[in-house]
């Protein structure tokens, strides 16, 4: 996939040689991307790559004067490889870097990028620490606060007496669990947090503790896809008397329902699109059509995140190139001028590079469809509550 993308870009460049003089003025700018195309985060990386490729195709079509091509390096889901990828991309002429997935990988990679003076943007790292480092070249479109706000809004609206949070000890899930614990406790909700090592596969002992000791109304999963499957499967076996199972990223997706139909019904997760996909914006419709054309499938969560970050970077590059500031460190300034509506809502970057407007809706799996159930302003239907997958 990466090879074909690079080959396409090379072919496009080669063909460009023979074009008329008017088109010979076209400027080609190279950006770099490090993605976890192999290793434990490969699924996320490959989907990110798809969203990025579609964004570049659309961005280049919209502004033919400045064409942006991407060199992609597989960081193999490891921080050391990500750092070396950034150094290699920078030395081969990339003007900016699109980051990979995971705060522990994005952290050192963006540090390296900052030292090399390259703008770095990510949609796959939500740790608060990343924006507290004072980097002038770091930007991201999503953050822990947005996820926390989306989930806390739903949980508080449901007025449960007790919530049990099952949280992976990885950085982002831990941070989210801590924030939710604080938000819910402030509303008088009893919260019990159960942390788990990402290596574990049998969640029955945790679910049994929740069933016999916590007796909550809601189980909240701050975890990743393979954890959700293990947790819900264990809950299906032990059947705790809860009213709802709620999760976070990559849960309320059509793919999860397609692959695990017996486990997903009525489960709630963060989302920004209902399914069947109803994209309201013109840009969203074009993205969905281009994605279908290139990858023969419906757009999904991670691809959309990647699409948005790449589009914003591409537009900033085109603005800087047209203003003649691209080679003079003007890209970071152009990034800071970003203020536009996207498929994720309005995106701006504050002084730390964070997007203060980021917030997500909550979607509920309902017999193969995903209904947006919270917040009320974005809802496409009422929540089924109490409702569990078993």
């Amino acid at each position, binding site marked *: 996939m990466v090879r074909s993308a690079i080959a396409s870009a090379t072919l496009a460049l080669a063909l460009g040689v023979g074009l008329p003089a008017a088109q010979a003025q076209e400027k080609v700018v190279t950006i770099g991307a490090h993605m976890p195309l192999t290793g434990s985060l490969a*699924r996320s990386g490959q989907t990110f790559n798809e969203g990025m490729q579609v964004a570049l195709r659309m961005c280049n079509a919209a502004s033919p004067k400045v064409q942006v091509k991407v060199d992609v390096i597989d960081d193999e889901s490891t921080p050391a490889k990500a750092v070396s990828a950034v150094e290699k991309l920078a030395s081969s002429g990339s003007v900016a870097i699109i980051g990979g997935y995971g705060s522990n990988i994005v952290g050192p990679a963006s540090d390296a990028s900052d030292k090399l003076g390259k703008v770095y943007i990510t949609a796959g790292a939500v740790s608060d620490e990343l924006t507290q480092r004072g980097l002038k070249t770091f930007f991201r479109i999503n953050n822990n606060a947005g996820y926390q706000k989306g989930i806390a809004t739903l949980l508080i609206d449901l007025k449960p007496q007790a919530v049990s949070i099952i949280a992976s000890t990885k950085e982002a899930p831990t941070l989210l669990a801590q924030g939710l614990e604080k938000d819910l406790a402030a509303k008088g909700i009893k919260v019990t947090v159960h942390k*788990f*090592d990402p290596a574990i596969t049998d969640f029955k*002992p945790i679910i*049994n*503790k929740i069933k016999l000791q916590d007796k909550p109304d809601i189980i909240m999963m701050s975890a990743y896809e*393979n954890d959700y499957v293990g947790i819900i499967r264990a809950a299906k076996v*032990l059947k705790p008397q809860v009213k709802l199972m709620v999760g976070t990223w990559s849960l309320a997706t059509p*793919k999860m329902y397609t692959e695990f139909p017996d486990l997903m019904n009525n489960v709630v997760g963060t989302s920004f699109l209902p399914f069947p996909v109803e994209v309201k914006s013109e840009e969203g419709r074009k993205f969905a059509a281009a994605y279908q054309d290139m990858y023969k499938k419906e757009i999904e969560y991670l691809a959309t995140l990647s699409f948005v970050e790449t589009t914003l970077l591409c537009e900033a590059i085109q603005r800087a190139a047209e203003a003649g500031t691209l080679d003079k460190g003007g890209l970071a300034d152009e990034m800071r001028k970003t203020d536009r509506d996207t498929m994720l809502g309005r995106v701006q970057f504050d002084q730390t590079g964070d997007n203060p407007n980021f917030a997500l809706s909550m979607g509920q799996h309902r017999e193969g469809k995903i209904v947006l159930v919270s917040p009320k302003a974005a809802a496409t239907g009422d929540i089924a509550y109490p409702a569990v997958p078993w």
Partner: protein
Amino acid sequence: MTELILQALFSGVLIGSVYALVALGLALAFGAMRIINLAHGELVLLAAYMAYLVESRTGLEPYAAIPLALAVVSAVSIALFMLVNMIRDHRELNSLILTFAIGIILTNAILLAFASDMRTTTSAFLQDAVSFGDVYAMRGEIIAFALSLVLMGLLWWWLKASWYGRAVRAVSSNRGAAMLMGINPTRIETVSFLVAGALASFAGVALYTMSVVQPAVGHALTVKAFIITVLAGVGSIPGVFLGAVLLGVTEALTVTLASSALQELAGMVLFLMVLFLMPNGLFGARARRG
């Protein structure tokens, strides 16, 4: 609290039996050839993907994939053995490096062939809950437990009573002396790798029925199997089962009585304690002589 501990013990025994199934093949190759096959987890993973392939393409239960898994994993095992057998110097160390590299190649081959999506059974039959009084399990876990016991018994019998089994033990004990007795060590080692591959096939299919698999889990399986092999002591088949169950129960009790975040740490502490107090493992050579 009693109910909690009973469930933890039950879950620990069930997960331990699958750990044992995964570790058996590694223990056999280690015992017979003094080769730590660091690609063993990837062989298990390959079998799990065969189960996925059969279930997703035919709609059959995952256990119907065992013949395919046996064929594919055995073929890869033989290829692996042929490569290992080409090593002439420092066999133990060089085989570690070689099998580690093969593990990486296999992981990425699986990634290319099956993508990075996680896979697990969708069989309602295997996912159904089964209760024994106050304790619960998935039907898939009970079947995997029974399979583990049966295979353990068969392997025990094979090593004790069959000519090939005795030859494996002879080569393991003294390769030179075994040659003098008319045993062809290469043939016996080939058979050991084949049997280890067969065990990995069953383990992979069982794992697919009760857990989530994705290309990256192969390495973790190898580490777990290695811990169990060392816990058990080289060459002890019952030791593998008991070591695996001990590890499973320790992990489950840690989750129940302390925190699930400490589960992996508890397993490693157990491993270090056993190494410190009983360097030959729980059922290693010295213990058995005693």
